[in-house]
């Protein structure tokens, strides 16, 4: 089967600084794939390239066979790629329920509507999704008043609302306690599995990576260092060298 996402020779430079240097990358449908590497490796840049958020990306990114490398973010989203951000983004002055409702309305493509029925229906589904991500009790809270972990859950749910084929999660557990991390990632993996979603996530916690990912790609200084199963990656001498070198 052809890969869901296939990147070839993807390059992104900021002036003379090359953030991504000719990345080749394939993602199989239904796969849970972790992107790891030291800070500055280009992981978030790569995610942003796929999501259409960076101008001046060179090379090819094909999604379901179509070139998406130079589309606008909204167009990429409509084709079935949803993303969360490293620092979670949501509509801060709205309640969790309003955020989720907005996500469903945007997903419906009928944002210009004045229909109360559409709003009621979206709100109904939003309530269900809040329950799914464990936020039913916080439905009325403004996002600005939510904890970091709850914001990450909300953002994940909002992305799910669009029913994307591919979920890009940029450090979904950053800043969370170990317990929270495992809770969230179990939720993510379960939801992805149930709905047949493909998952590409950036993660620093190796325990989480080993537990969730089926494949791992290691990036260093804008290039792919190694790719393989978690077991292969854990045993890879080059990877060990980078990680020991990078963190000590």
């Amino acid at each position: 089967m052809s890969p869901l996402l296939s990147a070839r020779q993807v390059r992104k430079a900021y002036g003379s600084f090359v953030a991504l240097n000719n990345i080749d990358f394939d993602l199989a449908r239904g796969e849970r794939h972790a992107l790891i590497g030291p800070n500055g490796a280009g992981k978030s840049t790569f995610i942003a390239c796929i999501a259409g958020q960076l101008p001046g990306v060179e090379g090819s990114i094909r999604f379901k066979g179509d070139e998406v490398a130079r589309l606008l973010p909204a167009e990429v989203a409509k084709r079935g790629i949803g993303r969360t951000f490293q620092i979670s983004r949501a509509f801060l002055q709205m309640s969790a329920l309003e955020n989720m409702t907005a996500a469903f309305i945007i997903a419906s493509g009928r944002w210009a509507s004045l229909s109360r029925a559409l709003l009621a229906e979206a709100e109904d589904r939003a309530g269900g999704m809040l329950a799914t991500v464990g936020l039913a009790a916080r439905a009325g809270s403004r996002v600005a008043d939510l904890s970091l972990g709850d914001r990450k859950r909300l953002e994940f749910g909002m992305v799910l609302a669009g029913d994307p084929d591919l979920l890009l999660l940029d450090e979904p557990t950053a800043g969370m306690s170990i317990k929270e991390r495992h809770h969230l990632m179990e939720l993510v993996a379960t939801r992805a599995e149930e709905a047949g979603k493909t998952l590409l996530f950036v993660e620093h916690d190796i325990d989480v990576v080993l537990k969730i990912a089926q494949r791992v790609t290691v990036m260093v200084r804008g290039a792919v260092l190694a790719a393989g199963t978690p077991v292969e990656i854990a045993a890879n001498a080059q990877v060990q060298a980078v990680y020991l070198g990078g963190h000590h």
Partner: protein
Amino acid sequence: MSLLSNQMSPARWAVLLAAVVGLELANRLTGAGTSLMLAEMLILAIFAASLNLLMSYGHMVSFGHAAFFGLGAYGFTLAVSRAGLPVELALLFGPLLAGFGGLVFGALCVRLTEIYFAMLTLACAQITYTVLFQWYDVTGGDTGITGFMPARFGLSEANFTTLVLVVLAVCLALMARLVASPLGLAIRAVGQDRWRAEALGLAPRRVQLVAFVISAAFAGVAGTLFAAFQGAAFPDYAGLGFTLEALIMVVLGGLHSFWGGVLGAVLFTQLRHWAPVLTGHWGLLLGIVLLIFVIALPHGVAALGARLGLGPKGDRA
């Protein structure tokens, strides 16, 4: 906390009803001078509410909103004076021209954000003002267009004020409907985090343009009424002075509140009306009041109302 049940509390309805009755009583019982003052206040309330829609919900600060007030006034005035349309029909051309102006200028302005957006709106308004001021053959230049209709459609002061009150109520009802709709939610979403909105599949500029056009058309309603009120249109209607007044009204009334624009217009016009009793220095008084509000009451009169228990903070934008 549901969006659909996010309607006015009984207490708010009571306050609103009392305000309307109070206004109408003042209009009917205190003479023509008061009626004229109230008519101007209510027209400015529509204008300020249109800017508030843009600022509080779309988080777009415009330094050129008077362009659409002016276009509204001239759209109506020119339709009567140059095209010879009957007044009733010409009324439509005010909001139409303002909305069209909003479409053209908005398409330019939404390409940028924040201060750059604001500076573009300023530039567009200055262009509008200059055209109205210089194009003598059509707009009459600095002498404006006068004498094309009896002021206030020939209605008595009190009857005209009642008419304006009705138009204000209709405009606010439409705005409330908009705010509590999928479109309203999309406008707020883009205003609060365009990156998130974009990543969910919303094209931010398109949403902002729709908000801009709607806001401009409402400003055009206010401009049309103002021209009918004066029986005249002048380039100043599109000038910086009106833009600044509307901005001050929104800040005084309360950003991020549905009622901010209206409350601000009431406070501003009443202050200006009664200021001569206190002082000959209106500008100084306004400056001090603005200072106090921005520092002590950054969310304006509307926040004070919420604090007094007039409904939940449910109308937060």
